[in-house]
């Protein structure tokens, strides 16, 4: 099977197009955030969070009133910044579609799934992050989150075209299996959604810091600049929890699919290869996050740090283990 150069080059052009779209979208989101403020003041958020915390402090299993009323209407109300936010969202859609086309052309140019080396994984991860964000945007207003999504996507694509670039080519035999699609695609979707989760947990920490300062009678610090433009801390915390809880079974599936593939390719389903070890560490962190969030004294800030540590393990596994650590998963194409 030869490589279709025309399609390979079309794919590269699409990647540059996507980078342009995401860069413009990042600018639009920045303008939108600079102009916008939400309606609920930090003071109100801080009060509400405190009162609901008191309700929740008891045991983990008593029936309680939901901490967040379902009718909170403060999300993403960017006021003046709404129009720039719309432009940003449209450009994110454009970038996601261009990345999808880039992956399609890349796959067609070699007649296989475009998941064979780090360059292709990075394109797929960028696609997954932007797609998860866009799909989530369909049912709720997430324009305030756009900036914090386009930045990681651009970092990912930037590293893809500079250090990770690999020409379109056939697969090494070890990757030649339908498990490539199942295992790698599941892992890539998880990375995409966990990136969104990490952005939410990070924003939660900033918003919580701002609200805490107000509760303690301090002047709203620098964190207030961001906190005033995103939903209240309790809301961010809940959104972060939902996405992590939804993705955790899928991450578990991705790891198990990898184990099934490893059994067929290497003769054992688990061998503590460095990549496997870090997938396990990631899994343990997210498991700890879900437990922490249901444990008095750990929910809130500590839990959010654990979620961020899980995302750190993903990044370490991707960039450090793939490139620098010798193991069986050496498919970086570098």
């Amino acid at each position, binding site marked *: 099977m030869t*490589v279709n150069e025309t399609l390979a080059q079309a794919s590269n052009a699409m990647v540059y197009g996507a980078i342009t779209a995401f860069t413009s979208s990042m600018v639009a989101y920045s303008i939108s955030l600079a102009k916008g403020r939400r309606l609920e003041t930090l003071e109100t958020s801080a009060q509400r969070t405190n009162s609901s915390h008191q309700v929740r402090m008891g045991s*983990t299993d008593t*029936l*309680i*009133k*939901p*901490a*967040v*009323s*379902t009718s909170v209407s403060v999300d993403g109300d960017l006021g003046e910044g709404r129009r720039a936010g719309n432009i940003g969202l449209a450009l994110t859609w454009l970038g996601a579609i261009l990345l999808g086309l880039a992956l399609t052309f890349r796959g067609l140019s070699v007649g296989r799934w475009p998941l064979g080396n780090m360059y292709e994984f990075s394109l797929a991860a960028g696609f997954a992050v932007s797609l998860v964000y866009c799909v989530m945007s369909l049912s709720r207003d997430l324009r305030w989150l756009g900036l914090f999504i386009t930045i990681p996507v651009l970092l990912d694509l930037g590293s893809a075209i500079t250090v990770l670039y*690999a*020409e379109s*080519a*056939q*697969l*090494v*035999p070890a990757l*030649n*299996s339908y*498990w490539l699609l199942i295992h790698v695609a599941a892992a890539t979707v998880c990375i995409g959604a966990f990136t969104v989760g990490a952005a939410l947990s990070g924003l939660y920490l900033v918003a919580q810091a701002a609200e805490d300062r107000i509760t303690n009678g301090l002047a709203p610090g620098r964190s207030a600049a961001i906190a005033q433009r995103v939903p209240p801390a309790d809301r961010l915390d*809940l959104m972060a*929890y*939902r996405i992590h*809880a*939804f993705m*955790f*079974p899928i991450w*578990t*599936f991705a790891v*198990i699919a990898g*184990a*099934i*593939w490893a*059994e*067929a390719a*290497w*003769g*054992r*389903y*688990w*061998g*503590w*290869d*460095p990549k496997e*070890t870090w997938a*396990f*560490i990631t899994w*343990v962190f997210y*498991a*700890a996050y879900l*437990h*922490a969030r*249901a*444990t008095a*004294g*750990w929910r809130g800030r500590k839990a959010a740090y654990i979620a961020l540590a899980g995302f750190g*393990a993903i990044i370490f596994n991707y960039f450090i283990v793939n490139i620098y*650590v*010798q193991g069986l998963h050496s498919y970086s*194409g570098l």
Partner: protein
Amino acid sequence: METLRWLWRQLTSMRIALILLFLLALASVPGSIFPQRGTSPLRVNEFLKDNPKSGPILDQFYMFDVFASPWFASIYLLLFISLMGCVLPRAVEHYKEMRSYPPVAPRNLSRLPVHLQWNSNTTVEQAISETQAAWNKRGWRVRAGDDWISAEKGYSRETGNLLFHLSLLVLLIAVGVGGVMGFRGTVIVREGSGFANNVTQYDTFTSGRNYSADKLPPISFKLENFISSFQRGGQQNGAPREFYADLLVKDDPSATPRAFRVEVNHPLRTSGITLYLVGHGYAPEFSVRDASGNLLWQDAAVFLPQDAGFTSSGVVKIPDTVPQLGLQGYFLPTVSADFSNGPVSEFPAADDPGVYISAWQGDLGLDSGMPQSVYRLDTKNMKRIGIEELAPGETWRLPNSGVTVEFTGYRQWATFAITRDPAKGWALGAAIAAIAGLSLSLLIPRRRAWLRVTPAAGGGNLFEVAGLSKTEAPGLADEISHLANLVNTKKENL
């Protein structure tokens, strides 16, 4: 006794479970940084050689056997004890709950997060009995009083949670049993040669405590043909593209041989064992004759690949001459025109094969009784008598001895791993059950709903429906209003 109880309470607390989880993650890290004996014993030896000071100290702390170390085991065993101490009481509790009915409806439903009310002339008795049936049909567990109904749904959340944690325990046991009852061996087989499943034929063999070698199933096979191909040109020039081994397999000595093609993701599974293709390389063929032309040695010697171009190194030992003779050198599948970097192969495929060998005379040291590597020449008591580069078909007459070495060609060889893990089906089952349990416990909310009927001030009855969820459940309001619609009151709302 008091202390024991305190310790048990601590161990089964969520705080300690969380700390143990962190320790488990932390303890795995060195296993990914230092080479591990389980996966790459050669790199461990190299590391110990390169770090004579720190190596042995690290070794004392099991840094090269992290996942088999006592401290790693103690973390996960404590974690599992903690998990069981937490899960088993909850399982008992859940079992009781599954067999009982939801508690009585609270008096004041209007304080609940979802609350609906309306008036109707429908009688209490009719409304209660019909609603009880309708909600029950929707999968709610219903308990009815004279003028109220309590209902609960989402028990599978806790069922899933318990299933997940118990599956993890089964998985851990399956991993352990697989290690004790299984084996793993590797063997190098040259094209045209065969293998019979016997411990003596393996190059490496490790088995669990409870696996005895005479239980090996009596399969045998012959490697008919090995095919490999590589990327030609482009950035990834020389990357492997395809390899497979064509075998003739006999499941037992009296069986008729059958053809089977083993590929990287396509192992042979038979008689409870699995046979994988894990590596390949080249074996140059030599014919060594004495001065009068009598054959001293003739075979294909397995040479081990050293780099991406498959520059392969190896030796030939010829003990039946006086003095003894040894050949040491390289097989290059594609001889490079430029020898400035020494003998290096340009490309992994055998486009233009050649060997670059040195001949040694003296004592091979085979009689010393010490086990010797077949890939290394002990040149302590030997003298080098010459170096030569040969193309296929060329013959080299060794200086000062009438011996000739003919490089007649090459064969390919393949490394096979043969494994048995009788518990892997259990591990897979446990993993699938874990995902199922996890999905139930994270995606299904546990919620309660109530109906209360009270006489309205202006005649007729006041109907109130309310709902509550233990966990953050999106869509609770919709579900409760759907339940309210099922309360079959005459629609002449007053």
